[in-house]
């Protein structure tokens, strides 16, 4: 793949070049090249085992690639630790909730805000002294309809609310690029209204890449779809292009001509 010029790179919110990752003989990512411009909503789809979550783990630094580069804005973050990437605005949510069961929603989001503000290491002043951070956390919770239950322990919240808290934690870090891993997973169709409006309500300043299986969400929110199969990017294009693509059809429907 040709290397992208640096002028083009910096106009992209996130890009990867030639990402490779294998576990022994199992190739989970092969020559992944992404070029995601600012403010877009892209969907990442593909069959199970295609490597979608692995790609997210590579981009966020939870996995180290065998080869390739990851560039956030104009910074090469390939060697950055996960928390350093978050500090630069690259944030993800988890398909299976990764929350703090015995913290309440207010504490959890306040923690995320404090970490962002760099004050989480301060142990000599009590939490109420950080009123601005607390107010900011409360405002985020309010925007996701979690304010009334914010004093309840996370483990006591309804599942749909926990899914929203997953997003709240991500928003508290003021992301520039947000990677959503199946945001609506585990929430039945009829009960996802708040979740959908949360996703719809994400600021246009945030670039969003989401993994999803639900075609409703994909077609509703994504301006472009990337299809991954077997660790490789099969094709990318507008939703209409992808829907009409013969290779995608083969992958999804399995095979020979009728």
């Amino acid at each position: 793949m040709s290397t992208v010029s640096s002028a083009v790179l910096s106009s992209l919110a996130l890009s990867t070049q030639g990402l490779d990752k294998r576990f022994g003989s199992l190739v989970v990512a092969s020559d992944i090249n992404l070029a995601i411009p600012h403010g877009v909503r892209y969907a990442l789809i593909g069959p199970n085992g295609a490597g979608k979550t692995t790609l997210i783990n590579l981009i966020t630094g939870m996995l180290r690639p065998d080869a390739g580069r990851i560039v956030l804005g104009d910074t090469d973050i390939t060697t950055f630790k996960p928390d350093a990437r978050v500090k630069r605005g690259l944030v993800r949510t988890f398909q299976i909730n990764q929350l703090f069961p015995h913290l309440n929603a207010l504490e959890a989001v306040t923690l995320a805000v404090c970490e962002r503000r760099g004050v989480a290491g301060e142990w000599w002043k009590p939490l109420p002294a950080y009123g601005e951070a607390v107010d900011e956390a409360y405002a985020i919770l309010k925007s996701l309809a979690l304010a009334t239950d914010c004093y309840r322990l996370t483990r006591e919240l309804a599942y749909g609310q926990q899914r929203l808290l997953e997003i709240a934690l991500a928003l508290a870090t003021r992301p520039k690029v947000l990677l959503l891993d199946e945001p609506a997973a585990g929430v039945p169709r009829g009960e996802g209204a708040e979740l959908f409006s949360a996703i719809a309500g994400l600021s246009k300043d945030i670039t969003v890449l989401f993994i999803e299986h639900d075609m409703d969400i994909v077609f509703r929110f994504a301006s472009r779809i990337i299809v991954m199969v077997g660790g490789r990017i099969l094709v990318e294009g507008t939703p209409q292009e992808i829907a009409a693509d013969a290779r995608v059809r083969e992958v999804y429907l399995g095979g020979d001509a009728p």
Partner: protein
Amino acid sequence: MAVSSSAAFDPNLYLQAQTRWQPIEYAFWAATLLPFLLFPHHLVLASQIAITALFALSLDLILGYAGIVSLGHAAFFGLGAYTAGIMSKYGWGDPFVGLLVGPAVAGLAGYATSFIISRFRHLPLIMITMGLGFLLLEAANSAEWLTGGSDGLQGVRIGPLFGRLRFDLWGYTSYAYSLCVLFLVFLVTRRLINSPFGLALRGIRENPVRMPAIGAPSRSHIRTIYTISAIVAGIAGTVLAQTTSTVSLGVLDFQRSAEVVIILVLGGAGRLYGGLVGAIIFMVARDQFSGIAPQYWYFWIGALLVSVVMLLPNGILGGLARLTSSWRDKAS
């Protein structure tokens, strides 16, 4: 804590209420003065309890709040004790000087080992803490010229408090000193727990995977709390050396490390008062049982531990918390 209406809910006021001193806390600390009145012949025991409580408090910081299981925490306790004892041998016997240097040495050791500790979790972490504990125990055993080896430190000469109050066998000075140190350290610890850092520690305990995903430098946080915990353990060890004028290898051994874990689990980890309550119960029970039937002490403590872990997984304080919240639910 119920919220009447979202319009009236102020998150800042709510958090302030959470960190306010509860009446039962005042009662607890008032009760710690009772031994002077009710048990004047047991002040030495009371002093031992206060020291153990302080040691358990230090463990709570890493185990109860950051989720770091250590079976080698006596290392820092022992470093504090030996430092204070050795210093006193060479003329630096003033308690306050010891209280400065002993914990500093323990803290330095804690800081150094925190770089290893922060890289591991679960079983490897337990093994490493145990291993470091054994290393230090053996080093102390071998360095007879410094520590007196298995005979214990000889020639410990602790000076009087404020130049006038001696640590004698009656225990008044000992208990007053230990209690004051415990209380002051507790105040600092309480403040820490209620700070953003305290919140970060709980975050690490609750979900270490999520912490880097919200931009938290977990390893740095762990190093900090481990160092603070080592300092507090060092303070406890220092006070022990000063109030008893003896330091032996027992301050460093595995049994001491294991016992403090038991005490904390008994009382309830992650609740700040758990170590204090656990220490009181454990030490009083041991004192009573040693009088009645010393050979069955371990049977009873084993039985107690199994029952607590099975029935009250969050220790005694955890059980009490559940009880009061279910009463409150029934009342409302």
